[in-house]
């Protein structure tokens, strides 16, 4: 299943990602991405494609490299370390959902054509898609889904709103999760639709986040899509859930990279900055705080990688969901602690935008909130714990 069979190959992947960030993503390159109105410089996106990282998470059946979530996390951590602005996590995991659904998906020739057309373009970086799974007022809870798809003659009509869609500005299409009243099933089912960015009735409100990334709110005012744009098979709801976990966990990995970089800067600073005739790092009180940060970052990486390795091919097993919820809760808490400590231990210079740390700080603070903060994920974790207590043997969720 995995494109990279052993540790050596993983090390190689990390090495190439680190090299890219160090050599290819310096301050001026980053500045140009920050200044780009979509927060995604097409030249950089092409580079990510050429390195194979956009094909990596696409299933082999979907024409990709069939890389695992774990491997996506290895890349994401390095991109986070280098403060890459381009929405790798958001768009690569959206592609992974599309590709995963591809094998059983095309119900008709038209859809098959779509699939054949989109996936190679995603892998090549020629097109970009974003996952619109979250709705306004739901704080990254994935369950509420007020967006409705109503059947029409040739397909569906979509109505509703999606919010904080990372990577949406400049994307060519969106995977929109909508509820469908399925004949024969009780209640509605959540189904993803591939909706092109220029579809009539689709309104995009783009904005920048305080960490320099870009996102958008989407409004669907009777957007018509062909039947072939409905993605996926019977178990699609679980698949959506799985790729929501993918994006959440890959986001954790990216955050680990940014935490590690902030920590490195802070450690260096404290070793060189002198007050009262000695380095700040020689104060035991500060040493202990550096150690606490170090341990929190190590645990963050461990819990993130463990969650990535708990990924199951179909849907979200309780074990996977539980470790994903724990990982995001943990990483949110760690990131919050790390950014505040890095500012405090630097003193006033840690509050400035012109010093390199400032960008890390904003990124970490936003990362706490993105994809749900610890409040949300602890509640999710607790509900997994409830279920474990009720049924000692594995049950499905």
């Amino acid at each position, binding site marked *: 299943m995995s494109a990279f069979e052993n540790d050596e190959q993983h090390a190689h992947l990390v090495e190439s990602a680190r090299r890219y960030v160090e050599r290819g993503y310096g301050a001026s390159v980053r500045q140009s991405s920050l200044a780009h109105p979509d927060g995604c410089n097409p030249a950089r996106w092409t580079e990510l494609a050429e390195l194979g990282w956009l094909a990596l998470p696409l299933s082999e059946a979907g024409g990709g490299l069939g890389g695992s979530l774990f491997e996506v996390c290895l890349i994401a951590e390095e991109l986070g370390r280098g403060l890459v602005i381009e929405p790798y996590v958001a768009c690569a995991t959206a592609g992974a959902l599309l590709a995963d659904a591809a094998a059983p998906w095309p119900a008709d020739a038209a859809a098959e054509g779509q699939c054949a057309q989109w996936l190679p373009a995603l892998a090549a970086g020629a097109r970009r898609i974003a996952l619109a799974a*979250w709705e306004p*007022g739901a*704080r*990254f809870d994935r369950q509420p889904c007020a967006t409705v798809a109503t059947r029409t003659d040739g397909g569906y009509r979509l109505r509703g709103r999606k*919010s*904080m869609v990372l990577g949406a500005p400049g994307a060519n299409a969106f995977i929109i999760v909508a509820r469908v009243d399925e004949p024969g099933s009780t209640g509605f089912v959540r189904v993803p639709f591939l909706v092109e960015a220029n579809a009539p009735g689709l309104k995009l409100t783009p*904005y*920048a*986040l*305080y960490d320099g990334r870009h*996102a958008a709110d989407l409004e669907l005012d009777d957007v018509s899509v062909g039947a072939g744009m409905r993605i996926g098979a019977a178990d699609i709801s679980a698949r959506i859930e799985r790729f929501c976990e993918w994006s959440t966990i890959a986001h954790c990995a990216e955050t680990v990279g940014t935490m590690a970089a902030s920590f490195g800067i802070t450690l260096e600073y404290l070793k060189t900055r*002198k*007050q*009262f*005739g000695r380095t700040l790092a020689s*104060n035991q*009180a*500060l040493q202990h705080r550096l150690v606490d940060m170090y341990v929190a970052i190590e645990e963050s990486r461990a819990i993130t990688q463990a969650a990535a390795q708990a990924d199951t091919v179909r849907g979200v097993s309780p074990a996977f969901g539980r470790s994903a919820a724990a990982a995001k809760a943990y990483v949110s808490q760690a990131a919050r602690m790390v950014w*505040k400590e890095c*500012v*405090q231990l630097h*003193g*006033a210079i*840690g*509050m*400035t*935008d*012109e010093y390199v740390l*400032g960008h890390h*700080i*904003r990124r970490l*603070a*936003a990362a706490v*909130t*993105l994809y749900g*903060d610890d*409040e949300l994920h602890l509640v999710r974790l607790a509900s997994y714990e409830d279920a474990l207590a009720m049924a000692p043997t594995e049950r499905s969720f």
Partner: protein
Amino acid sequence: MSHEPDLAAFRTELRRFIREQLPPDIKATVRAGRQVSLAQFLRWHALLAAQGWLVPHWPREHGGQGWSVAQRLVFDEETCTADCPELNSITFDMIGPTLIRYGSRAQQARHLPPIAAGTQWWCQGYSEPDAGSDLASLRARARRQGGHYVVTGSKIWTSYAQYADWMFCLVRTDGEVKPQEGISFLLIDMRSPGIAVRPIVGIHGWSVFNEVFFDAVQVPVENLVGAENQGWSIAKSLLEFERLKLARIGENKRRAARAREIGWREIENGEPLMRRPWFRRRYADLQMRLIALEANSARFIERSRTGQPIGAEVSMLKLRGSQLIQAWEDLAVDALGPASLPYSGAALVGDSDLPTPDLAPTASSRRFLSRGFTIAGGSSEIQHNILAKQVLGL
């Protein structure tokens, strides 16, 4: 509390004054969490000065009202919770009282009236790139040349230097003695030739900080406060003026009110956050800490009222008050959640004309700004050191 004025009646009078006098645009700007412009500050100063309330804690002979600390704290609390701008304590609490205590008659006559009228803005030039917590290692030089000091060097983190008419500045006048013994306290006109001010943009998006460069700036010797090389002890006692205020009860209550407003406005799962267990608990937790801070601070106020020394243990008020402000700002951001993420520089400045502004656009910036409370004015670590050494005797 027999000599205290009737604080309840005073509170009522204050509320009425604010209701009638606080200009709506200033109120809206403060409520929205935007940066208050210099022009807005000056208008508010004029209104307070006309009432005699701009420097009420100063002695009467210098234009004050001789208010007690308790009365002054009621004033802070009421103005904060009614969306009045935070008055620049560097001007009104630091340099004013310092000049009253150490200034020459000429310095008092020149500066106290415009400060009391609210027309003269001061900044504090202490910190330097290499002299932060270790302030005594400062290096900006002042050399005596005839009737002037010639000042060369730089200051950094100077808050609101861009608004300031004057700076009070610590400079090195003797490099041969112990660091603390070669420092002098100078008043410098910010319009003097040779001064350059460079704004520094913060992670919050505002430029509050500045770097100030002095290239052979001539400062008349009559702008020396106290004796040459006595600047350190003046600076140290100056810090004491502020001590009781440093619990920042008013500023905490300002933020508590904002958190409460967000709590009632934001809806989660069909109910206001104020009804959601996680938010209720965190909100109550912070209120608990505020109640403790207030109770603790009341003990120090009572000591000061009865003329007892307040002692180094007053550091605990600064320590706790600053941490609590940050906790309120964190709660606001967490409560807004995804709504706190979008950023627009334009939303941070300029007048807001909405009576009930959206609090989201400035929440993350205000939260970043609040990190300064545990760094400036003696960091939390330095407060810990003071408590450990001077109070616990370690």
